[in-house]
């Protein structure tokens, strides 16, 4: 049964007012052949009590695993206050504002978020967020090509998440943009600089630089940024926002700084939730701000000189520029960035640094202990943030399945995406893991082998 908050008398009065006999009559110009009629495959509706019971039964089927999987979405502790505040009706039900100036509170939270994320990435400006990290990367590529004005080729290292590369390809392929893959060095697990050098002097709009990369390894971001700028190409930083509490911000890479910084903001207050919602962040240098897609909140003064917030630079957007807009994006992940703003404010610089450092330390400890299991070794020599690649003596898929049966999500299977690595898994231990958890991981791994 649909929930429509109109009573029968309400509906009858409205129909009488416009002179229609019934609701079906409002659709009478749709040819009979196009109407769906009754949807026979859809079961009858349930009432609230029945739905509630069904959900309880389904939820009981979930088997929570001790989670050591990262690969783009990370389990971090989110202080209870974050969602206690973010679920207040004023934040929870507000959509991305269109009569923006009437929603000063919403705009202020978004402005504060923009300020914090720009500060974290060391960039001049931020937008109010995009759908997720993968589409933010695609938008950054589109933005770099627009800004470059000449080339439509973008270099994309194989150390960028295969999922992100697939999304970027889907989004840019119909716009005549070529994504060129740069291989990685099998020893270090980072982008092969000699392979990159082969593109020197060629037609390039931008180089994407992941930090850390998909393997958890740290790239030589200064060298990569300097190389891109030497080619008159833009440097697009693809970063984990929590890692920036410890690592050099993209705005400070090389002397010139990255031009655009994107990534997924999930580590900042978004629960894992079976894959989402998360949010994409995008920041850039001042000179590029008119090429940035999405909503941008600005701070200004009203006629009386009082501070106020507004949607700004809207002439880039499709409701004004139509086909010539910088993007079709006219929305943002308002709720997730509200939570992120609260999360960052509660943790502060110091709290973020401690969470990042503890994640790094736990992954170090896990690596040492797991490498002690016969036949297991760590791949790649480059320093890492909070993920490492372990090579296994048996089928990675089988090992992970066995570990899952023991209640442990042992990692992300790299074999299907990087067959050259063989039986390799990507493992992550965040600040949420205790020594007992690490021991349980090692025991499950040993048992699976």
């Amino acid at each position: 049964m649909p929930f429509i908050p109109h009573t029968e008398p309400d509906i009858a009065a409205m129909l009488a007012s416009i002179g229609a006999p019934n609701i079906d009559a409002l659709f009478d110009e749709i040819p009979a052949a196009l109407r769906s009629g009754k949807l026979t495959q859809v079961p009858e509706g349930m009432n609230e009590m029945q739905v509630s019971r069904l959900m309880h039964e389904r939820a009981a089927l979930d088997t929570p695993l001790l989670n050591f999987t990262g690969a783009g979405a990370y389990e971090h502790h989110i202080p209870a206050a974050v969602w206690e505040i973010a679920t207040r009706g004023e934040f929870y039900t507000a959509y991305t504002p269109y009569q923006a100036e009437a929603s000063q509170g919403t705009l202020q939270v978004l402005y504060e978020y923009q300020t914090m994320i720009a500060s974290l990435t060391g960039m001049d400006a931020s937008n109010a967020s995009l759908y997720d990290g993968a589409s933010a990367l695609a938008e950054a590529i589109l933005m770099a090509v627009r800004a470059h004005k000449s080339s439509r080729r973008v270099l994309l290292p194989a150390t960028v998440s295969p999922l992100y590369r697939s999304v970027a390809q889907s989004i840019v392929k119909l716009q005549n943009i070529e994504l060129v893959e740069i291989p990685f060095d099998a020893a270090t697990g980072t982008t092969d600089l000699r392979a990159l050098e082969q593109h020197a002097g060629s037609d390039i709009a931008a180089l994407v630089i992941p930090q850390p990369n998909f393997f958890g390894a740290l790239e030589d971001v200064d060298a990569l940024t300097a190389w891109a700028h030497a080619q008159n190409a833009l440097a697009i930083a693809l970063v984990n926002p929590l890692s920036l509490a410890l690592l050099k911000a993209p705005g400070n890479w090389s002397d010139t700084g990255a031009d655009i910084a994107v990534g997924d903001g999930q580590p900042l207050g978004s629960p894992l939730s079976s894959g989402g919602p998360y949010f994409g962040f995008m920041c850039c240098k001042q000179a590029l701000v008119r090429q940035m897609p999405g909503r941008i909140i600005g701070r200004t003064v009203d006629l009386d000189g009082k501070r106020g917030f507004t949607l700004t630079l809207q002439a880039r957007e499709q409701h004004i520029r139509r086909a010539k807009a910088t993007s079709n994006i006219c929305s943002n992940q308002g709720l997730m960035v509200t939570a992120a703003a609260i999360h960052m404010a509660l943790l502060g610089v110091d709290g973020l640094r401690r969470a990042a450092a503890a994640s790094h330390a736990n992954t170090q400890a896990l690596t040492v202990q797991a490498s002690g299991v016969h036949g297991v070794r760590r791949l790649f020599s480059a320093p890492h943030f909070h993920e490492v690649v372990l090579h296994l003596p048996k089928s990675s898929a089988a090992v992970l399945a066995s570990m899952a049966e023991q209640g442990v999500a042992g990692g992300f299977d790299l074999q299907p995406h990087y067959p050259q690595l063989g039986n390799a898994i990507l493992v992550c231990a965040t600040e949420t893991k205790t020594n007992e958890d690490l021991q349980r991981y090692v025991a499950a791994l040993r048992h699976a082998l």
Partner: protein
Amino acid sequence: MTNPSNLKYTASHEWVKTEADGTISIGITQHAQELLGDMVFVENPAVGRKLKTGEECAVVESVKAAADVYAPVAGVVAAVNSDLDSAPEKINADPYGAWMFKLKPDNAADVNGLMDATAYQKHVDSEAH
């Protein structure tokens, strides 16, 4: 403000002035700036760029709209008015003085095919609704 009689005009509301050195200066008319409102940003073409007649080559952005500016005749961009980078509002204050960019036309005679002040005013009147 009347449309200066020493200028030529396009249907898309650009004005054209032939300079002594054979280049032409281009800006937008009083009518255009009035409709667009307060200017906040001007994006001019790069010097050296070759343009065809009617080719979209610049953008003027106001608080409420962003409008394309078109090359009135074919030519090569010879200069841009960088004053407008920091003071786009000059277009509002002095639309016929605040030139946006200059072209070296492929054929000087092409300018003769554009509207004069009277024809342009008739065009503006016919667009009014």
